[in-house]
């Protein structure tokens, strides 16, 4: 049985842990708000651009660009977007597991991982020393600088023929309470052509559709990367917020149980002392 002093010490330690968890929950809530705002304000742009790309791609026969042409696949790159920090439940484990399951299904195709975020970099760096490219610093929000660098690396891998497909593994943000790991192909760009081509006839392209696509597609890919990092960042903060609110609750439960235990221990100590005094008095008489 624990002594009274042990239990008191234990309560104090749980209390301070609870305070930290609570503070982290608040910080995550504030960051989630910012990350969510960033994501939501990017969505109208993303949707419009999506539509524009689809229209140009369905414009006709003459359209071709390395970003849309399919090639025989010998190697693929999987860009895994995790977070810099832990304490966010299964957030990092989920994206990493998805990436590894995908890799296991690829058979003969060589899979190259491109980790983004410290946790992903650590995980994949353990298996492969000096893994490159690698982005161990993501920061709490989607920054344009890292988006640019990441896009440049991914397109370089693709254009130089080191890989024939680029996939992105990230956490899709649905709401602060729910998120889902998604693995989608970034390159070559998927075309949902066919539908809606008849009503879009007669578009004027300036410059030609081909040249327009040349400037449009790199921009489109960068936008995709940015939005996915933004999704992942918002998901990270919401995952951490949920994990920390559970941690706070668990700490509360623990403090409650420990307090009962402490009271009982104190009571039994008092009882024992009284018994001792009575016993001694009995002897002295």
């Amino acid at each position, binding site marked *: 049985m624990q002594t009274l002093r042990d239990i008191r010490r234990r309560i104090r330690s749980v209390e301070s842990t609870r305070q930290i968890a609570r503070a982290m929950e608040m910080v995550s809530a504030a960051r989630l708000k910012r990350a969510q705002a960033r994501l939501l304000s990017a969505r109208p742009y993303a949707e419009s651009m999506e539509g524009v790309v689809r229209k140009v791609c369905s414009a006709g026969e003459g359209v071709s660009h390395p970003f849309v042409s399919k090639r025989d696949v010998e190697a693929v790159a999987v860009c895994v977007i995790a977070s810099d920090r832990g304490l966010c439940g299964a957030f990092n484990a989920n994206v990493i597991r998805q990436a590894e399951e995908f890799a296991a299904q690829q058979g003969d195709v060589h899979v190259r991982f491109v980790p983004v975020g410290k946790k992903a970099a650590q995980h994949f760096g353990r298996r492969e020393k000096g893994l490159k490219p690698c982005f161990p610093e993501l920061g709490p929000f989607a920054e344009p600088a890292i988006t640019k660098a990441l896009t440049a690396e991914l397109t370089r891998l693709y254009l130089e023929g080191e890989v024939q497909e680029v996939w992105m593994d990230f956490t899709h943000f649905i709401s602060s309470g729910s998120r889902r790991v998604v693995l989608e192909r970034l390159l070559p760009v998927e075309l949902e052509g066919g539908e809606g081509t008849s009503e879009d006839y007669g578009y004027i*392209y300036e410059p030609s559709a081909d040249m327009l696509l040349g400037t449009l597609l790199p921009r489109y890919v960068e936008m995709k990367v940015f939005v996915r990092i933004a999704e992942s960042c918002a998901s990270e903060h919401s995952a951490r917020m949920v994990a920390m609110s559970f941690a706070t609750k668990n700490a509360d439960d623990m403090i409650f149980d420990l307090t009962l235990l402490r009271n009982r221990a104190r009571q039994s100590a008092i009882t024992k002392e009284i018994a001792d005094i009575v016993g001694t008095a009995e002897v002295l008489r």
Partner: protein
Amino acid sequence: MAMNPFRLRILTLEESFYEGDVDSLIAPGADGYFGVLAHHAPMLAALRPGKLLVRERDSIENVYAVSGGFLEVSDNSVTLLADAIESAADIDLTRAEQAKQRALERISSRRGDVDIARAEAALTRALNRVAVYHSWTSG
């Protein structure tokens, strides 16, 4: 004279910059400036850095500096996807001049680690901001 208005939406990756009914606009297309009035034919155009002139209803004119993007006309509404855009009134001339100087220095330094393409793009943007500011104050 009352004109037919049409809807204009200006979007950037950071925000929905503008949304409203306008009478006409003049945008810096990749092949030169072009104007859009109501009931324009469907069009997709790439933009280069330049001056965007928007004439709102009641002939209020707004001038913006655009640093490139795309413009779509369809269904009597215009969507402008801008890389970056700012109102001429918001342009900080000293900052733009400084950015211009920095870009010039980086281009002329000819060091190996300088990304010439990026420096030139920065210079174009800075020059555009300066030019738009001057045309706005003089006009």
